[in-house]
């Protein structure tokens, strides 16, 4: 009797499945980061990869009921390695790539002849240009763009009526990019900076922040909130509670708008967080979430289309039937004009979720999610036409 059942079970699964092999490659390109004042908070070595591994497990569990065989090849380019050679090896092994690399490397990979028939997921570069004039038809973005994050904060400022805004920007290109994105977001939501100062200190802020920051912020005068553009998390953490005026701090420190954070626990997120923490013994971060979302999106497309080829998967991801349950309170979809994953942006402080953008009242004819980031009428991307 038991034998009979087993056979019929196998028969059932066989009828549902066509045994798809789904090879995916994880590509990480090590980046040289300048030193920061505090060396207490190192970037985890498995940042991003840990998210992909969690998604791999999710996909494998689903896949075992559907005859899908998932694999994740890990390719890392260390400083000094030939990144393009490593990308070629990854492309030879898998048609789906999840890439954590600087924008120029993402573009170099996407433009390789070998990548013409591949589908690349950018999980590490927030650059606006990758979703704009430098967009590529074979690159989708699961990490929110800088403008999605700064739009989320601008909505918060508008909602709170914090209209007198000042900013301190660091000198690194990442800080300057964030500051520009923020200024554009403020303009988009009818706000403007009252003053902006560049961070020019090179003394050790851990020791003298209490003396320097009050003076540095004194000539801002009256304002409602202080924005910090410090994407490498160098000086910003020493500004909080040291400002001349007692005002909220937002941006790279204080109230942060990110793809993900350890404090996101609503919408079933606690389950993803606990799965992740159990497997990797640390908190899940934005780059982990973006890599997770990329591999889960592929998983969802393969499951729904019962196919594992790039054209079918890409068409499904950009089509009307795709939706990803991303633990952010509503289904996630891709923007058809630039391949960006639409997603709510949690506004957080280190201990709790404050709000979830898009905030109530910011309306859009298609979906409120499109109040965050580059919208269809203004996009500079033409590769998706």
């Amino acid at each position, binding site marked *: 009797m038991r034998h009979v059942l087993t056979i019929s079970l196998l028969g059932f699964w066989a009828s549902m499945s066509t045994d798809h092999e789904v090879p995916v490659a994880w590509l990480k390109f090590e980046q040289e980061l300048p030193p920061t004042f505090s060396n207490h908070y190192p970037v985890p070595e498995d940042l991003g990869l840990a998210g992909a591994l969690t998604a791999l497990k999710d996909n494998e*569990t*689903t896949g075992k009921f559907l005859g899908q065989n998932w694999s994740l090849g890990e390719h890392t380019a260390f400083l000094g390695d030939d990144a393009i050679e490593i990308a070629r090896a990854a492309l030879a092994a898998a048609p789906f790539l999840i890439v954590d690399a600087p924008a120029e490397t993402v573009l170099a990979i996407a433009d390789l002849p070998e990548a013409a028939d591949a589908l690349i997921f950018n999980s590490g570069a927030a650059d606006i240009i990758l979703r704009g004039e430098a967009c590529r038809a074979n690159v989708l973005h699961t990490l929110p763009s800088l403008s999605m994050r700064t739009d989320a904060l601008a909505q918060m400022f508008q909602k709170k009526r914090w209209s007198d805004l000042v900013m301190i920007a660091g000198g690194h290109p990442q800080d300057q990019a964030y500051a520009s994105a923020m200024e554009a977001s403020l303009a988009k939501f009818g706000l403007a900076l009252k003053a902006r100062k560049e961070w020019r200190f090179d003394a050790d802020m851990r020791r003298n922040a209490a003396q320097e920051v009050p003076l540095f912020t004194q000539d801002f005068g009256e304002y409602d909130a202080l924005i910090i553009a410090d994407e490498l998390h160098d000086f910003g953490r020493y500004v909080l509670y040291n400002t001349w005026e007692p005002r909220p701090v937002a941006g790279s420190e204080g109230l942060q708008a990110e793809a993900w954070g350890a404090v996101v626990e609503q919408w079933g997120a606690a389950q993803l967080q606990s799965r992740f923490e159990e497997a990797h013994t640390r908190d899940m971060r934005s780059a982990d979430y973006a890599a997770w979302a990329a591999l889960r999106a592929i998983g969802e497309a393969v499951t729904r289309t019962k196919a594992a080829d790039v054209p079918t998967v890409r068409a499904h991801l950009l089509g009307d039937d795709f939706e990803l349950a991303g633990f952010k309170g509503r289904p996630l979809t891709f923007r058809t004009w630039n391949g960006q994953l639409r997603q709510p942006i949690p506004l957080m402080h280190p201990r709790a979720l404050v709000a979830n953008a898009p905030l109530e009242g910011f309306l859009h004819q298609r979906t*409120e999610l499109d109040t965050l980031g580059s919208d269809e009428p203004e996009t500079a991307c033409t590769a998706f036409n």
Partner: protein
Amino acid sequence: MLRTSLLALTLATAPAYADEIWVSNEKDDTISVIDIETLEVVRTIEVGERPRGITFSKDYSVLYVCASDSDTVQVIDPDTGKILHELPSGEDPEQFVLHPDDRHLYIANEDDAITTVVDTESRTVVAQIDVGIEPEGMAVSPDGKIAITTSETTNMAHWIDTEKQELFANTLVDSRPRHAEFIKDGSELWVSAEIGGTISIFDVATQTERAKIDFEVEGVHPDRVQPVGFEMTAGDTHALVALGPSNHVAVVNAETYEVEDYILVGRRVWHMDFNADRSLAFTTNGVSGDVTVIDVTKREAIKSIKVGRFPWGAAFRPTN
């Protein structure tokens, strides 16, 4: 002792107790007991951590509670509110269903991708079945032969042969399936999909999809219309469907599968149960921390009852 004599006294003077609705408060570690006559909370019972699924034994002599963060199912004497004992449940039990044999609990272990079958008499685990990621919705067919687990991230209904305690089918549904029910004498299985925004209806004999119900609440973006718990009205003629953050309950005609009405209730409506004749429904509203009482015939909310923080499940208890 005092309580017993008081009870006896009250029994002597008041011939009938009002029936009750028991509500698990996920973030208060309590159960609120609502008197159906007065529509007020008459008792609050302390239970284990993060209580979610709750259900009574067939004779209502004991209450089973999934104490998710205590990793156990608690068995409670509903008269005294005392915890009698705990059942092994596997890790993180979220939701469960009592088999028609009144003896076996089928439990979804949310963090472990497992369905655990527990014998409530011997207090032992009878079987553990591998299912998809984040199992949640649980149902057993009226004849007891099929159990269902829905998995929220795998997006499937897993069909379990309860004799073998093995899977015999896996059917895809839309994103984040939350709740499952057998209706019409077990000929149909309904599965809600929170993020998909649908209810899929399966023909049980063939495990094939027969229909799909969509919801549309005026003034609410489709993304926020998220079907979660649902229950059938008397005679299985209609389903009341909790639509999560849209703060509405849908009334679905179970014959035509058409949505006939939407009723505004509290915030993030989650699960529900009825009174004895199913003329009143009691919905748990997680975010507003209350229970909405719905007049099922008039299809309108008639009262909100404040309960604990994040009410999750509801279970009816007759007292006569």
